């Protein structure tokens, strides 16, 4: 028997009260987008509690795999929809369970329609009894090999032997848009993924310092974003021409403070570009303690230049866990390509781990960086990458 529908269970939406509808509409839109490339005919409908995807001629497993990458989904259950008649339910359940491998089973029942003559326990008992009478299986309530679920909805009943974990979080777009600082290393793509999963749309911002950084980095970033397109179908890559400001920093600032001042400049630029692009937060791949600029003291000095929230999804994530996620989202192999986002020329030997804001301000009083920051903001080139393709290549953009 084929599963004709896939039932999508919502994530953390039950707390949303009056806004719930907005969230569900957003999720449905995202599901339609996600399916539009490989499953253009799949129909998406929803009621108050679930979204349904009609399987049609598609492979149900392919659909499940695709849906697992859509944020805001708690669980994904391929179901057979039948009328709310115990005879039909019994027969369907039996037929479904016969197709499964395994020797033990358990029936779980849920009754959203409280008018249904049997209560949940009654349904469980009756369906289990029917299966036991007609099929050689043992009941195991603790570690069953097969779990059959019966869900009595208002208009129909849903029966299934499988359920899959979704990626959780919120529907993408419900939590606004953030400007993600993307270096091309292992961390920033993972942070991007975690933001998207939380329902936060991202734009990305990269600071390029040619010729001290290689142009090959841009290809690397593009490849990373193509991978992230699975989770957010369209992502903008903004490139800041950072060379002059970078050189000025190293010219005017003593070596231990260079990185801190550089991060402060980056945050100033990122804030301005974020404002311009309608983003309501900045995000980085920083992890507390990982390098000198990522201590709490450094973060105070860096946060001081912006009133935007700086989200650091990896703040407490261990490197190995981060690498695991990077492998899962398939960005790891791209991130470890040999060329660097920042050339070794700009690697100070002894960076300050506990910079003070006063000292930062003193260094920053030494030259007119404001005009250089302004030039960086004006010089931003944007590329738009959608579903793995470069839609709009900012490298041909006219200077404005």
């Amino acid at each position: 028997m084929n599963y004709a529908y896939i039932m999508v269970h919502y994530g953390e939406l039950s707390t949303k009260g009056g806004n719930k509808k907005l969230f569900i509409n957003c999720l449905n839109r995202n599901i339609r987008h996600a399916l539009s490339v490989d499953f253009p005919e799949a129909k998406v409908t929803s009621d108050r509690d679930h979204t349904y995807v009609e399987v049609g001629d598609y492979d149900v497993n392919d659909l499940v795999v695709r849906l697992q990458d859509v944020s805001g989904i708690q669980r994904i259950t391929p179901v057979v929809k039948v009328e709310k008649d115990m005879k039909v339910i019994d027969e369907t359940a039996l037929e479904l369970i016969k197709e499964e491998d395994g020797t033990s089973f358990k029936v779980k029942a849920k009754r959203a329609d409280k008018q249904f003559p049997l209560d949940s326990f009654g349904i469980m008992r009756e369906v289990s009894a029917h299966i036991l009478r007609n099929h050689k299986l043992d009941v195991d309530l603790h570690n069953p090999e097969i779990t059959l679920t019966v869900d009595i909805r208002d208009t129909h009943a849903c029966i299934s032997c499988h359920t899959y974990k979704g990626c959780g979080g919120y529907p993408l777009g419900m939590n606004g848009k953030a400007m993600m600082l993307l270096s091309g290393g292992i961390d920033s793509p993972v942070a991007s993924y975690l933001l998207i999963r939380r329902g936060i749309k991202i734009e990305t911002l990269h600071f390029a310092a040619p010729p001290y950084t290689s142009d090959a980095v841009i290809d690397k970033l593009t490849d990373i974003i193509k991978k992230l397109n699975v989770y957010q179908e369209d992502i903008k890559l903004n490139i800041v021409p950072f060379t002059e400001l970078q050189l000025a920093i190293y010219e005017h600032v003593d070596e231990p403070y260079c990185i801190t001042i550089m991060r402060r400049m980056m945050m100033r630029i990122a804030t301005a570009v974020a404002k311009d692009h309608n983003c309501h937060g900045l995000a980085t791949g920083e992890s507390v303690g990982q390098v000198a600029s990522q201590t709490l003291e450094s973060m105070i000095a860096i946060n001081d230049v912006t009133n935007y929230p700086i989200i650091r999804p990896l703040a407490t994530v261990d490197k190995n866990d981060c690498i695991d996620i990077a492998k899962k989202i398939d960005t790891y192999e791209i991130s470890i390509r040999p060329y660097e986002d920042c050339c070794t020329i700009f690697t100070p030997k002894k960076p300050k781990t506990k910079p003070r804001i006063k000292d930062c301000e003193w260094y920053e009083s030494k030259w007119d960086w404001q005009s250089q920051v302004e030039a960086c903001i004006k010089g931003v080139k944007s590329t738009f990458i959608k579903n793995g393709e470069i839609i709009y290549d900012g490298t041909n953009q006219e200077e404005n």
Partner: protein
Amino acid sequence: MIYFDNAATTKPYDEVLELFAKLSKEQFGNSSSAHFYGRESSKKLEESREHILSLLGLNKTHKLVFESCASEANNSAIKGVAYHYANRGKRIITTEVEHPSVLNAFRALENEGYQVVYLPVNSDGVVEPKVLETSMTKDTILVSIMSVNNETGAIFPISKYADIVHKYPKCFFHVDATQSIGKVKMDYTKCDMLSFSSHKIGGLKGNGVLIMKKTMEITPLLDGGEQETGLRAGTVDLPGSVAMDLALTTTLKNLNANQTKAKEIKQYLREELSKIDEVVVNSPANSIPFILNISLLDHKASVVLEALSQKGICVSSVSACSSKGEPISYVLSAMGKDEVASRNSIRISLSHENTMEEAKEFISTFNNVLSTTVGREFVK
């Protein structure tokens, strides 16, 4: 674009591309097939085989195996001899400055229990013949030395080496001739084995040859069909191999004229670059006219390479910019250059297509790049 990276690969000749396309379309038969169409292919292939050998004056004494690249040919030669003649001895000799396809083949054999001698080079980057002489023993079965170094263009006296090796009748002499073929006149008749590739002489990528004495046998790398008399299994690339014949013919025909032109350009580049304080020229006086290797003492080579690249100029350096253990040129290190010079070398390599105008533009851009980019010691 100014393309000064011809030692990496050259632009294929137009007539080579045309011939390749024509043969791929009209002569696609498998040269191993027994029908008339296959036999036609086979005939063409044998003509090219003979022709390449005769261009090098080796058709009487040597046979030729078509392979996929010089790396494969080097591996075939080195491992082929080492395995086949292991009963004569397990001592093999090469130099410290070979191409990785030779060096790593020797290292692999070293791991298998062969005794490997890596000959040092002098400050010109060349192995002194007497160094080879003192390293030879009766149980040495193979000596592999390049004819021209790929980084510096230094020319090696292969005839002298051959004379030394041939005092030991059980030892074979292999030459990686990838950078000398079509670049400099050389007598290869004393070599037991010779390898080179097509894409460095205006041919296509994916073709190389191993030439060896008719009397020699080696253990093949691949198990498979009986193509190339069992020495290299796999369907032979007929169009590519015939195209290689044409590329070599064309290159050798124009060798004198090409050399004269390149000499002039290299001389100009050498003079102009020597005027720059931080530049050290690494290529010795006796090097081919097509390669000029320099080191930068103040700038990082990778930064200069990137800056040149963004201005449309292609040269090569040892490394890409990387903070994780920056690569070092083992060739320059072996020549006794210090660490800074060995880490920051740039190779300019010419072809017949390059002009003096390009060289002039290169010099002005190069000077401009050096004055507008910060140096290696920027962060004090």
